[in-house]
């Protein structure tokens, strides 16, 4: 059985349906008599709606209805809620504007929803949507942080002067000032974290259905957290109680954060399905995804680091502006605050840190979590700044990091920015990475490249992230408006097979395999006798879903706790069957044995006894064998690691080729090494994408210039190298599995390693900074400018 237990690279259960074309994604689902939705979206970044004339659309044969924001308002449909409140420096709350699913008065970004066309086919709906005449009065728009910050800038919201949603701070300002006063050396950096679009391969889709007989709503949606959608949409938008609303997120084709949020389209199809009394289906075109999926990143930061003569860090001062887009998305305000600035200590013992963040509105798509969510912004800033500091201090980039690392004996370590790291060994990861990357032999490789006319550079980053989100009381104190525990149910069926109901959601992570490994490990049952059910509020009792690398560290622990309850009850049943006492029963390899004897009963027979309780302690024990556990973590988990990137730059064209990439990570205990490696590969390539290829570009009027896959460059197979992956393990100290999480690490560690490598390659040309993405044009221009 241990072949399929914890630590084994078990091949995935879910793969069979995907490799045979039998996966079932939302757009693969068709409901009888369904209508198709096309959404009329604003072509302008900021405008007042004077009138919507649907008569042309309604005249098209096959059009069933056209619905507008006025119809929605008349039906009392509420606005999309924000799930995290942030406070200003003075303690006042952030500006929190309304967010109607269909705009009735003013549109605030290109893509804002204005009207809905319902028709008998997708094609008819699209044709008719072209005929909906919306009369707009165009208003001035701001499409970037710079434009939104300018004196006299147009206002996205009247009640947000200066387009400021919040002006927030963390850390000790006066201690940090004192650190700078005592410093003998300082380094500083001005840095932009480029705006990105997640681009999960499956476009978002939603189907609404209403059962008049039972007064029940069903929503099929591409979500990472169906219970969260049920809660937010049911309670805040639609006014539907939980028992009348079922949310199903079946197979979901990637999320990377972009499918966490409660989107307008989910409310629109749920509302429209009841209104027209037919199922209603919407699927985004990719071009529609670009202007309606929440975007990520988009920070402008100035930061300074104070050091002593030995290059020891004394203080860090950070000032960031973060783009929130036109409306507050579900977790938008938490990303550039508590998920970003709390990570500014990084892996270092910087004694004083102060950060201030202005969250700003612009006439762009709402910005929210994208793989890493705040933590990539922190690590990119910090690791670029530390490389600068190394230059100022005259130290090797590795040496300055070693001098400042938090050491294993320092844990638990309270940072100056509100976190308490439980464990880690940062030098161990560095040593592993240096060896695997053959760092010491870099110079000979550089010379070999030089002989071919290429500039070779090497870059290092170390990172820490806080994941396993989150202790509910801590998150609540920081502004979260939801609990962040997880729930798991283990149902032992009468013949001994197992059905697990988990609140985590797999959209590529492989929970159907790793969670089954946990079951096999605990109960000794056959791997094939375990079924993991997720993604359906009608089947799974409760859950908070998958994001923030939380599935193993929170959902996995909930499952293990439920399994422990099963083990305890099974021992009691076995004790009765074997006429022994509970404490004498050993449960191992699927068998329950009276210790020190050969008397045993198979787990399957215990299950049968629980459901056919003829010989059963009914006076002290309930029949059946099913247990649920809710688990709320005591702390965040803190994966960390060291990434080393090696690039070759062609000075004639500016093309950057990543020729080698090494990731040495500490994810705590690992359930399935194959799956963990796959997560690192994917995360690193998204990080390389941010560093070299991807950029969301708006023009000054708020039109999205990078609005298709032709204009927004995703990494392709021939853009990236193989990633060399290794891990070391310091088990998490506060969860029973010792796991930390691995989903976001690559996207956090990779961008600074890549850019540090590019800057290193260009150092001989006098270049000391390059913006992401380091496109051939940017690199070539930097070389020319320096020459």
């Amino acid at each position, binding site marked *: 059985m241990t072949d399929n237990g914890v630590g084994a690279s078990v*091949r*995935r259960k*879910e*793969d*069979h*349906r*995907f*490799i*045979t*074309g*039998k*996966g*079932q*994604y939302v*757009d*693969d689902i*068709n409901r009888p008599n369904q209508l198709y939705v096309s959404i009329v979206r604003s072509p302008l970044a900021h405008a007042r709606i004077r009138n919507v004339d649907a008569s042309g659309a309604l005249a098209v044969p096959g059009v069933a209805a056209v619905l507008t924001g006025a119809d929605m308002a008349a039906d009392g449909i509420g606005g999309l809620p924000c799930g995290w409140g942030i406070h200003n420096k003075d303690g006042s709350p952030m500006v929190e504007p309304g967010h109607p699913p269909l705009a009735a008065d003013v549109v605030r970004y290109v893509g804002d929803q204005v009207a809905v066309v319902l028709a008998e086919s*997708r*094609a008819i709906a699209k044709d008719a949507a072209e005929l909906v005449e919306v009369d707009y009065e165009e208003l001035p728009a701001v499409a970037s942080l710079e434009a939104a910050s300018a004196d006299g800038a147009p206002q996205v919201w009247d009640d947000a002067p200066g387009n400021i949603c919040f002006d927030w701070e963390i850390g000790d300002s006066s201690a940090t000032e004192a650190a700078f006063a005592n410093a003998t050396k300082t380094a500083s950096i001005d840095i932009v974290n480029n705006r990105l679009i*997640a*681009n*999960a*391969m*499956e*476009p978002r889709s939603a189907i609404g259905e209403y059962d008049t007989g039972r007064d029940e709503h069903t929503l099929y949606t591409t979500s990472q957290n169906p219970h969260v959608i049920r809660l937010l949409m049911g309670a805040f938008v639609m006014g539907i109680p939980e028992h009348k609303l079922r949310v199903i997120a079946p*197979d*979901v*084709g*990637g999320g*990377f954060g972009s499918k966490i949020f409660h989107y307008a389209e989910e409310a629109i199809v749920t509302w429209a399905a009841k209104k027209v009394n037919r199922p209603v289906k919407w699927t985004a*075109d*990719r*071009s529609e995804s670009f202007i309606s999926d929440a975007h990520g990143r988009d920070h402008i930061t100035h930061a300074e680091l104070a050091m002593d003569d030995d290059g020891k860090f004394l203080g860090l001062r950070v000032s960031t502006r973060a783009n929130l887009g036109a409306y507050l998305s579900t977790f938008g305000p938490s990303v550039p605050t508590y998920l970003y600035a709390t990570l500014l200590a990084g892996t270092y013992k910087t004694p004083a840190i102060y950060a201030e963040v202005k969250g700003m509105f612009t006439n762009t798509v709402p910005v929210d979590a994208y793989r890493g969510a705040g933590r990539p912004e922190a690590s990119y800033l910090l690791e670029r700044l530390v490389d600068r500091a190394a230059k100022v201090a005259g130290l090797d980039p590795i040496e300055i990091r070693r001098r400042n690392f938090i050491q294993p004996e320092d844990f638990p370590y309270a940072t100056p920015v509100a976190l308490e790291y439980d464990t880690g060994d940062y030098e161990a990861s560095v040593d592993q990475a240096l060896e695997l990357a053959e760092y010491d032999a870099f110079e000979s490789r550089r010379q070999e490249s030089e002989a071919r006319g290429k500039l070779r550079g090497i870059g290092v980053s170390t990172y820490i992230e806080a994941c396993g989100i989150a202790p509910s009381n801590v998150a609540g104190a920081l502004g979260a408006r939801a609990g962040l525990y997880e729930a798991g149910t283990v149902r032992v069926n009468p013949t001994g097979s197992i059905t697990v109901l988990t609140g985590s959601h797999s*959209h*590529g*992570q*492989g929970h159907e395999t790793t969670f089954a490994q946990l079951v096999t490990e605990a109960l000794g049952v056959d791997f094939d006798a375990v079924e993991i059910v997720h993604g359906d509020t009608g089947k799974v009792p409760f859950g908070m879903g998958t994001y923030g690398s939380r599935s193993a560290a929170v959902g996995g622990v909930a499952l293990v706790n439920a399994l422990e309850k099963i083990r305890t009850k099974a021992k009691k049943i076995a004790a009765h069957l074997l006429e022994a006492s509970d404490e004498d029963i050993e449960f191992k390899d699927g068998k329950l044995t009276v210790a020190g004897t050969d008397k045993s009963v198979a787990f399957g027979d215990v299950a049968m006894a629980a459901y056919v309780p003829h010989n059963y302690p009914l006076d002290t024990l309930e029949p059946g064998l099913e247990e649920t556990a809710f688990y709320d973590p005591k702390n965040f988990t803190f994966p960390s690691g060291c990434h080393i990137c090696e690039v070759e730059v062609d000075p004639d064209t500016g093309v950057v080729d990543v020729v080698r990439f090494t990731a040495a990570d500490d994810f705590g205990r690992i359930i399935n090494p*194959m*799956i963990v*490696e*796959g997560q690192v*590969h*994917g*995360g*690193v*390539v*998204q990080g390389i994408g941010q560093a070299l290829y991807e950029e969301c570009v708006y023009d000054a009027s708020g039109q999205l210039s990078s609005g*298709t*896959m*032709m204009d927004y460059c*995703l*990494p*392709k*197979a*021939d853009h*990236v190298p*193989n*990633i060399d992956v290794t891990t070391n393990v310091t088990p998490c100290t506060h969860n029973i599995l010792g796991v930390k999480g691995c989903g976001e690490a*690559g996207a956090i560690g990779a961008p600074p390693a890549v850019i540090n490598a590019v800057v290193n390659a260009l150092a001989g040309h006098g270049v000391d900074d390059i913006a992401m993405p380091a496109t051939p044009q940017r690199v070539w221009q930097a070389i020319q400018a320096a020459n």
Partner: protein
Amino acid sequence: MPTKVSLTLNGDAVSAEVDSRTLLVELIREKFLNTGTHVGCDTSQCGACVVHVDGRSVKSCTMLAVQADGADITTIEGVATGGELHPMQAAFREHHGLQCGFCTPGMIMSALDLVRVNPDPDEAEIREWLEGNLCRCTGYQNIVRAVKAGADAMRGES
């Protein structure tokens, strides 16, 4: 104006009435309910919709349904035979060449066409061939490994 198209789909003779603007992928997914072929973009970049038309890989979002009249079409649903996985499918599972699974049918159909024209591709050739198939999950590393292993197995060298 609806037009009748008749074609062979995974070995079965089928026909349907389609609009002149109906795309092949819409015909496959919406009329014949073979939903293993996916749509990931609207600009022919992503390759999630790759099928075989008369034995060659085609992005089925770039072809009109009426152009497929009389064609022999194979989709991901037609790759396994007699309940046995095709060696390329098995290689994707064995080498963890998929995560969310959305790009996977297109990847497998594209890889099979690569092996048709180049039975023993090296890593660089595989990466170049898959330039028209996007994956956001895997970083391509295990896809490339799977395609190599699948090609080896198809040559009987696994």
